């Protein structure tokens, strides 16, 4: 028998929310342990880096467009472009290259 789809949807949402707030429930103050502190210092950037590459190359219809967008985004961000502008640079790069091909 198939589980009720709404029960399914609510369980999925609640389980996901729990993952978001578990750290908030158990942390009372910043961690002092040097290893743990250093670990958490790196986590945000490493996780975003892992999620970005090579996924950006796989997201576009033409892999080369994703690769060039990746490079263009890094250059734009390096020279101080903000969040929105970097995203726009990446999108326009892909559009431009895929129209050329």
């Amino acid at each position: 028998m198939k589980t009720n789809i709404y029960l399914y949807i609510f369980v999925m949402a609640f389980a996901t929310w729990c993952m978001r707030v578990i750290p908030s429930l158990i942390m009372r103050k910043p961690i002092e342990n040097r290893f743990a502190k250093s670990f958490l210092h790196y986590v945000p950037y490493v996780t975003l880096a892992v999620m970005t590459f090579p996924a950006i190359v796989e997201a576009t219809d033409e892999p080369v467009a994703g690769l060039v967008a990746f490079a263009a985004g890094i250059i734009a961000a390096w020279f101080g472009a903000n969040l929105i502008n970097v995203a726009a640079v990446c999108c326009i790069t892909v559009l431009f290259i895929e129209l050329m091909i």
Partner: protein
Amino acid sequence: MLFLEGVRVGFPIGLGYFAVAFSLGIAARGYGFTPFQGFLSSLITYASAGQYMGFSLYAVNGTILQLIILTVIINLRYILMGFALNQRMPAGTALSRRILVGSCITDEIFGATIARPGVPSPYYTFGALLTAVPMWAAGTAIGIGMGNILPAKIVSALSVALFGMFIATIIPASKKDRRIMAAVVTAFICSYIAGAVPALSELSQGTRTIILTIGISALFALILPVPEGAEDSEEIKKEVLSHED
């Protein structure tokens, strides 16, 4: 106002979400979801990889227990992100503030929150969440309802918006802190290798993200630990100078 600042960053995030949700919707349609069911699940779950897993599990009659276990595994990165955000909050921060900020965690909102200096604010995160998530939910519903109406080239171009935002978060931090740069470059290389090596590439994207994040962050915490008491580059510079004495 912090809330409006969140709205401003939430809008481009939402545009990216819309494109991704659209393709999620096309998948959900194949798994038998109606536009309303897709809209509801996106509105209250707002987790891309997790939802994709949930939809596909429903299609193969997965049990509630399987759903819970897989949701926990796929979204483990949210726990890491939650710890990283709470690390930015001083002792004595109200529990409500911690929970509200944590509730807003998505890959992109986390990225935007981390990129912003100072203690994470629930006004900022909710400004972003309340702007971006309705677009995520609408994209899912429209994807289910209408299938492919946007030209493929537009979908392809929009699909990199999210990655652009990730890049905009990691690059300025790398420029300021060479240890982060080393970790980021290592992460790019390892992630590429993990996607190409047969045994590792069979793992889901979410599982690979967790393994690589924990492995690389732990490695760098061991070989390049953050100096005691140093939170920003100023203090790091002072520490370096005092070592030169």
